[in-house]
């Protein structure tokens, strides 16, 4: 475990927690698309359903593999039997969709009425013959992207603990790679093996769109590092093998429960590194993995320099400007670190929850970046208070505020540039290749507003009367 104490120089504060964010059940939106043979059943009320329906917009019409198990008054007052009700619904899902796994998402309501989902799942699983994963992604405990964390932490338990060995060709070593190379000719596999350095198996965790998976996998391959598996994989049936002593690395900052579960329950070794967001982050991530495996990284200097050079047209738009993170998705530290490296200053980073251990390496890279770029350390505000933040925004007049949709339009109407934070969750932002996409997002309001600037339409609300 890489438990580094958080650097002293960074200031951490904690406010009231009155902030806007998405409910963590929103993770079904991207996870059902990522895990193609899954079905997500959100056990909650109309409130949960209404949120998902509206937050996912048009996706809802594409026959999603998710549904609500909408609790009615009889469920709340325990007049109906939870087991029988869930069985009825899951049998129907099995009949209509035949998924390889059903993921139950527990909500605030199931927490409050203490519905024993973890207890019911194994019984029902045995009875209907479909694996059931239970994740408590509720708004009582978690914010937005932490929903994915709870689902992946639950999936860790379902990962096979031993690589299955194929009948007839019982080679002792590298069984996993064979699994991954299933269906390919033996000679091809053998030839490919030689491209990799001999290192203990590495499994990456965090849900990424497939192009990003390929991209990061290839990036490590250039260093001779082989990715034995991803949690989650494209299909539930392809979950990676996790044996004691395997190395694991997180690609997103909000996966601390998953990391803990991998270490404690599966005895994996966590490589604590900055996250591969931005060319600086990607490089630090690769270097850290290389150093753990005793590999001398090759060509990273040139690779990083080349990416920075290609970003110059965007960077000159934001260099010397300031950015304020209101905080809602836990990507804030990594994004701020990257934007500071791009030449921005950052007075405040709001963040829902700060795991100083899991993010230790990212935090120290942030601090180092601030020093090297000669800007003051940001205040890191955990559980921020949106009302107070808005007062600070009025005072500081930052050039860009990264915020949720609830505040974006009102701030724009008051002449403050905003970028909707949720887009960073859905865009492809990882690896060298996608650094441009982050800047495309971050500079968009500045580019748009600079084309409007001569029109004198900055402030579109009448001065509020001071009481």
């Amino acid at each position, binding site marked *: 475990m890489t438990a580094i104490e958080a650097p002293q120089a960074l200031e951490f504060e904690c406010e009231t*927690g*009155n*902030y*806007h*964010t*998405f*409910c963590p*059940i929103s993770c079904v939106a991207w996870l059902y698309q990522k895990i193609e043979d899954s079905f997500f059943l959100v*056990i909650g*009320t*109309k*409130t949960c*359903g*209404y*949120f998902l*329906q*509206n*937050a996912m*917009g048009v996706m*809802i*019409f594409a026959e*999603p593999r998710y*549904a*609500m*198990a*909408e*609790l*009615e*008054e009889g*469920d*709340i007052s325990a007049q*109906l039997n939870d087991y029988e*009700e*869930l069985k*009825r*619904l899951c049998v*129907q*899902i099995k009949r209509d969709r035949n998924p390889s796994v059903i993921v139950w998402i527990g909500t*605030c*309501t199931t927490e*409050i*009425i203490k519905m024993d989902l973890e207890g019911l799942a194994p019984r029902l699983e045995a009875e209907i013959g479909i694996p059931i994963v239970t994740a408590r992604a*509720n*708004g*009582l*405990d*978690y914010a*937005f992207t932490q929903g994915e964390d709870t689902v992946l932490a639950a999936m860790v338990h379902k990962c096979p603990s031993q690589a299955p060995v194929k009948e007839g060709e019982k080679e002792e070593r590298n069984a996993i790679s064979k699994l991954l190379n299933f269906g390919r000719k033996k000679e091809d596999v053998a030839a490919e093996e030689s491209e990799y350095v001999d290192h203990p198996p590495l499994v990456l965790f965090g849900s990424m769109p497939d192009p990003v998976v390929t991209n990061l996998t290839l990036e490590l391959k250039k260093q001779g590092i082989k990715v034995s598996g991803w949690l989650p994989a494209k299909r539930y049936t392809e979950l990676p093998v996790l044996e004691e002593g395997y190395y694991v690395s997180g690609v997103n900052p909000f996966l601390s429960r998953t990391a803990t579960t991998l270490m404690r329950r599966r005895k994996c070794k966590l490589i604590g590194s900055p996250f591969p967001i931005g060319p600086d982050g990607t490089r630090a991530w690769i270097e850290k993995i290389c150093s753990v495996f005793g590999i001398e990284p090759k060509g990273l200097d040139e690779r990083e320099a080349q990416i920075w050079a290609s970003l110059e047209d965007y960077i000159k738009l934001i260099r010397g400007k300031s950015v304020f993170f209101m905080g809602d998705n836990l990507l804030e530290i990594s994004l701020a670190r990257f934007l500071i490296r791009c030449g921005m200053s950052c007075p405040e980073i709001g963040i829902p929850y700060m795991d100083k251990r899991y993010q230790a390496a990212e935090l120290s890279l942030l601090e180092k970046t601030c020093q090297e770029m000669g800007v003051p350390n940001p205040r890191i505000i955990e559980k921020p208070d949106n*009302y107070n933040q808005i007062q600070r925004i009025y005072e500081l007049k930052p050039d860009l505020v990264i915020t*949720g*949709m*609830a*505040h*974006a*339009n*009102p701030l724009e*109407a008051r002449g403050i540039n905003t970028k909707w934070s949720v887009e960073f969750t859905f865009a492809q932002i990882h690896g060298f290749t996608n650094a441009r996409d982050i800047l495309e997002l971050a500079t968009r309001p500045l580019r748009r507003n600079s084309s409007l600037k001569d029109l004198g339409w900055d402030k*579109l*609300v009448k001065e509020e009367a001071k*009481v």
Partner: protein
Amino acid sequence: MKLAYWMYAGPAHIGTLRVASSFKNVHAIMHAPLGDDYFNVMRSMLERERNYTPVTASIVDRNVLARGSQEKVVDNITRKDKEEHPDLIVLTPTCTSSILQEDLKNFVERAQIEAKADVILADVNHYRANELQAADRTLDQIVQYYIEKARKKGELPEGKTEKPSVNIIGISTLGFHNHHDCTELKRLMADLGIEVNEVIPEGASVNNLKNLPRAWFNLVPYREIGMISARYLEEQFGMPFVDITPMGVVETARCIRKMQQIINAQGGNVDYEEFIQNQTLYVSQAAWFSRSIDCQNLTGKKAVVFGDNTHAAAMTKILAREMGIHVVLAGTYCKYDADWFREQVSEYCDEVLISDDNGAIGDAIARIEPSAIFGTQMERHVGKRLDIPCGVIAAPIHIQNFPLGYKPFMGYEGTNQLADLVYNSFTLGMEDHLLEIFGGHDTKEVITKGISAGSDLGWNKEAQGELNKVPGFVRGKVKRNTEKFARERGFSEITLEVMYAAKESVGA
């Protein structure tokens, strides 16, 4: 438990928030877990609201679960009171807080001692009321609160306004085209010489609610929101109300005649007949449209209507009575008020469907194969899948249903807008069919590498005849699949045999 993919009406607290945030200077505090303030996103996005939505949450987290909210709710109320100086703070329970069974009433009383604002608890049962019912109740609750308050202080104004006047009740934020309807209704009242006394809740100040009884009567344009308040005011002050939705030419006239009757009963002396006549025949275009040959082409075309009570009922009557369209099925998701709907539409359609299950409506549409659908965003998507055009007439809605341009559904301008909506839906449908029947420039699916596939493939007479028997909405697909099959196999002419072979091979 119910397996649900989609819901037509939102949860109760959304209704309460819609009403609370429609008023000026009213702040709602939700007793809710993190993430339940999604209402703010919807208001900010859909309505493109420039101001902060006056809704905050008093967060229910693990600590609250373990120890109760204790001071938290009271602190949040008094804090908001100091920060924003609202006239009224509405404490809004959510599904979560309703199972916690905390004594919110008590929090309200305690907060009231310190707060300058009035503080009330929205009295809505989350598991029994939906968004619309809750909005109706909350509006009534606020109206009653301020009428009672004024009565206690002896501030209720005496008597009526000098000229005939009206309160328009039920215009709210996130309501379907509510802002435009409101403008149109005000214009209509001005044309009729009726003063608008108060419009609630949108844009109203709670301090003016005591003036409601000064109006001669109330107008409740939407069936879903405002009825309870109108009945309360009738009971308390003998104020009559008009609950005829002025949507469509006939209903608008009916609504105006009812207002005339009410005004004259109170000693007014108005005759609106000439106005109605003039508007109907020469000003609004809808009556003339009904007579024109364009509309003749729509005669007997099949349509399905689905939505909330107000819009689905009005639309059904307009289609059937004013345009001669055959409404095969009219439906509503307002199950709690189904009798009213049945009574309104029964004589204008073949079937009535009362359901909030989008699958049931989708199946009905597929079975009926109408030429056009008038429904919610959900029906629009069903239409997309089945290749049937759809005009959106009711919530749930997306951002495109909050147009910047002036698009009322009510009053005489509303009749014009509706005529356009209906006509455009059907013409597009016709155009589509004509293209398919005559094998026009269909480039939906590229069959060959180039765009100009030409017509090197001939359909012989029998095959063409067979193709024409295929129902319109799948005909295009059958045609494309058959041609693709023929091209791949190198057939130069499509015969019945080729057609069936294609069907067998791809299930076209």
